[in-house]
C-alpha cells in the first residue's frame, strides 16, 4: 500500500462516527437465547416441546428418586418399599446391600482388602494416564501393583487369612478382568499386528490374519462359552484351571484381536522413510521396531486404544453369563431374595453410576489426549 492511500484510509477511519453498541436483542443473555433457543419458529417450537418434556420427566424422576423414595427399612421387611412400588424408589435395597454389590461374597470382615485393591487399581490408572510417567519404570510399577493385588485378594501370607477365589466378587472382579485383560492383551496385540504386517514371513502373516478375523467375526459370548465348557476338554486329565482364569484368558484373546487392528493402523501411519532411515543406520528388525517404529506408532493410536479399553471394561460384564461374580452379577444377585425382588432398577442404577464414572473418565481422557497429540486438527 503506498503512502497517500494509507493516509486516505486513516482519514476515512478517523471520520467514522463513534461506534454504537450493538442492539440489545443481539447481546448478553437475551441475544444468546435468541440465537441458540429461539432463532426461528421451528427452533422455538423444539425448545418449548423439549423444555416441557424435560421439566415433566425431571419432576417425575425427582418424585420417584427422592420425594417418594424409601431410604431404609427394618431388617428384611420391605413392605414400606412395596407400598410405594412404582411411585417411589426403594433405596433401602442399596443401604442394605451396598457392600454385597461392591464386594460380593468376600468375607465381611475382610472387605477392606478388595476395597484397597480397587484403590490400587484406580491409582494405577491415574499414574498410567499421566504422560510424565510414560517411561520404562511404569512396567515395574504395574508388576509390583498387580502382585500386591494378588497378595491382598488371596491372602495366606503376611498374616492375611486365605480367601479362595470362588468367594471373590463385585467391583474387584470387574477391575481384575479389565486390567489383566489390557495388560496381557497389549503385548499379544503388538505381536499380532507386527505379524500381520510382516512381509518376509507369509505363513506367520496368514496365521495372524486368520486369528484376527476369526475372533473379530464372533461374539465375545461364544469365546466365553468356549472358556467355560471347551477349555476343560483341551487340558490333560487332572489339570484344572479355575473358571475366572479361563474367562480371563478368553477376554485376553478377544481383546488382543481388536487391539491388534488398532495398532496395525498406527503402524501403517508411520511413513516409509522412518523404516528406511532405521535400516540405513544398520538396525536389526527388533531394534528398528522397538526403537523407531513402535514408539511412534503407539503414540499415534493412544486415543483409539483408550476407546478400546472402554469397550473392554464394559465387555467384562459378559462374564455374568457364564456365572462369574462380577459387579453386574452382584447387582443381579442382590435382588434374588423374595423380599427384594422387583427392585432391579434401583440396583442397576447403582452399578450404572460406577460403570459410568470409569467409562466417562476414560472417554474424556481420550478426547483430551487426542486434542493434545494432534494439535493441528483442533478447530
Amino acid at each position, binding site marked *: 500500500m503506498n503512502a497517500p492511500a494509507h493516509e486516505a484510509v486513516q482519514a476515512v477511519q478517523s471520520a467514522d462516527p463513534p461506534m454504537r453498541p450493538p442492539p440489545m436483542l443481539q447481546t448478553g443473555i437475551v441475544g444468546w437465547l435468541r440465537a441458540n*433457543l429461539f432463532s426461528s419458529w421451528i427452533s422455538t417450537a423444539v425448545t418449548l416441546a423439549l423444555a416441557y418434556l424435560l421439566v415433566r420427566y425431571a419432576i417425575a424422576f425427582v418424585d420417584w428418586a427422592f420425594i417418594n423414595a424409601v431410604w431404609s427399612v427394618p431388617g428384611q421387611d420391605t413392605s414400606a418399599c412395596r407400598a410405594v412400588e412404582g411411585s417411589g424408589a426403594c433405596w433401602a435395597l442399596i443401604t442394605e446391600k451396598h457392600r454385597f454389590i461392591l464386594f460380593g461374597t468376600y468375607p465381611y470382615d475382610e472387605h477392606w482388602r478388595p476395597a484397597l485393591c480397587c484403590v490400587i487399581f484406580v491409582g494405577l490408572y491415574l499414574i498410567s494416564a499421566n504422560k510424565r510417567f510414560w517411561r520404562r519404570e511404569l512396567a515395574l510399577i504395574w508388576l509390583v501393583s498387580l502382585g500386591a493385588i494378588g497378595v491382598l485378594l488371596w491372602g495366606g501370607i503376611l498374616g492375611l487369612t486365605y480367601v479362595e477365589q470362588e468367594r471373590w466378587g463385585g467391583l474387584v472382579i470387574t477391575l481384575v478382568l479389565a486390567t489383566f485383560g489390557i495388560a496381557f492383551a497389549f503385548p499379544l496385540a503388538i505381536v499380532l499386528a507386527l505379524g500381520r504386517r510382516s512381509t518376509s514371513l507369509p505363513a506367520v502373516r496368514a496365521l495372524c490374519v486368520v486369528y484376527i478375523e476369526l475372533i473379530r467375526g464372533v461374539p465375545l459370548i461364544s469365546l466365553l462359552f468356549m472358556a467355560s465348557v471347551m477349555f476343560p476338554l483341551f*487340558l490333560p486329565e487332572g489339570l484344572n484351571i479355575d473358571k475366572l482364569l479361563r474367562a480371563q484368558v478368553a477376554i485376553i484373546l478377544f481383546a488382543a484381536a481388536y487391539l491388534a487392528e488398532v495398532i496395525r493402523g498406527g503402524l501403517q501411519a508411520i511413513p516409509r522413510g522412518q523404516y528406511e532411515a532405521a535400516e540405513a543406520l544398520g538396525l536389526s528388525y527388533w531394534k528398528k521396531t522397538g526403537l523407531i517404529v513402535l514408539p511412534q506408532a503407539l503414540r499415534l493410536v493412544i486415543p483409539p486404544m483408550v476407546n478400546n479399553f472402554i469397550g473392554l471394561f464394559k465387555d467384562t460384564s459378559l462374564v455374568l453369563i457364564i456365572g462369574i461374580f462380577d459387579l453386574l452379577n452382584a447387582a443381579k444377585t442382590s435382588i434374588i431374595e423374595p423380599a427384594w425382588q422387583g427392585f432391579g*432398577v434401583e440396583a442397576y442404577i447403582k452399578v450404572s453410576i460406577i460403570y459410568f464414572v470409569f467409562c466417562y473418565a476414560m472417554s474424556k481422557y481420550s478426547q483430551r489426549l487426542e486434542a493434545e497429540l494432534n494439535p493441528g486438527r483442533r478447530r
Partner: protein
Amino acid sequence: MSGESPRRPPRQTLSLGHPIVRSIVWQAVILGTIGWCVWWLVANTMHNLEVRRIASGFAFLHREAGLPIGEALIDYSPENSYLRALFVGVLNTLKVAAIGIVLATILGTLIGVARLARNFLLAKLASAYVELLRDLPLLLQLFFWYSLLQGLPGPRQALALGGDVFLSNRGIYFPWVEWTAAHWAATVAALAGILASVALTRRAARIQEATGDRPHVLLPGLVLIVGLPALVFFAAGAPWRPDVPLLRGFNFQGGVRVTPEFAALLVGLVTYTAAFIAENVRAGILAVNWGQWEAAGALGLSRGLQLRLIVLPQALRVIIPPTTSQYLNLTKNSSLAVAIGYPDIVSIANTTLNQTGQAIEGIAIIMAVYLTISLSISLFMNWYNARVALKER
C-alpha cells in the same frame, strides 16, 4: 528378523545369515511350535472325550430336541429336531438384527444431526444421550429395560396406550388386521410402486442433466407408492377385519404380541447402537468442509437441498465404514439375548449343548453362524461403500 535387515553384498552360499534361509527357518520354528500346541490340545480333547464317552460329530442334530421355544418365525414344536430348533434360533437372531439395524440407523442419524443442531437444548440433550448410553455396558442396559418391562402390571391391569395397544408384563399387544391375499397383493403393489418411483427419479435426474429442467417426481411418486397399493387393495374387495387384542381370562387373545424379551433386547440394542451411529454421523457431517455448505448456499440451494445434494453424499463416504462395524457389533451383541431369555441362536445352541453334552459342536455352530452373518454384512456394505466412494478420474 529377516528380509528387512541391513543389506549386505549378496553371497553365493546359503548360510544361516541369508534372508531367505532365515525366513524359512523362522517360519518353520513358529509353525512347528503352534502346530505342536494344536496337536497337543487336540490329543487331549480326543482323550477327554473318550474318557467321558462323548461321541463327537453332528449326528445329534437329527434327534428330537424336546426344548420349548417361546417365539418362532416358522412352525416349531418340541418334537422337532435340534436342527430345526437351531434354525429357529438363527431366524430369531436375524429378525432382531435386521429390525435393530434399521431402527438404530434411523435413531442414530436423528441424534447425530440433533447434536449439530443450532438449538442449544436439542444439541445438549442429544450429546447427553450419547455420553450416557455409550458409557454403560449393554448387558446392564438390557437388564434395565427387561426389569422395567417386567415391572409392568399383569394383563388384567394392563396399561392401555391410545386405544387398542396394551402394555403388560406378558408383552406388548398391538391391533392388527387379518392378513389375506388382498393384503399381500397390496404389499407387492407398494413395493412395485417404490421401485417405479426410484426409476422415475433416475429418469428425472437424467433429463435434468440433459436439458436443465427437472420434471416433477414428488406427485407421481406419491401416486405410485400410495395410490397403486390402495387401488389394488380396493379392487380386491378391501377385506378389513381388525384383529384387536382382547382380555380373555388371564391373558390377551388376538392382535400381535411382542414378547418382553424381544422388546427389551430390541430397545436395548437400538438405543445403544444408535449412540455410536450418532457419533459416526456427526463426525461425517463435520468432516465435510464448511466451504461446501457456503458454495452450495451461493448457488442458491435451500438448506435442505444443500444437505441432500452436496453435504450428505460427501459425508456418507466418511460415515459408512465405521457404521458397517456398528451393524456388525449390533448383530454380535444380539447374542446377549441369552441373558434375558430371548431364544436366539446362542441361547438355543447353549441349551442344546447342555442337553446333549456336545460342547465343541455347539460352539462351532454358534461361531459358524456369526461368521457367516458377519461376512455377509461386510460384503454387502463393502459393495455399497464402493458405490458411494469417491470416483476419481
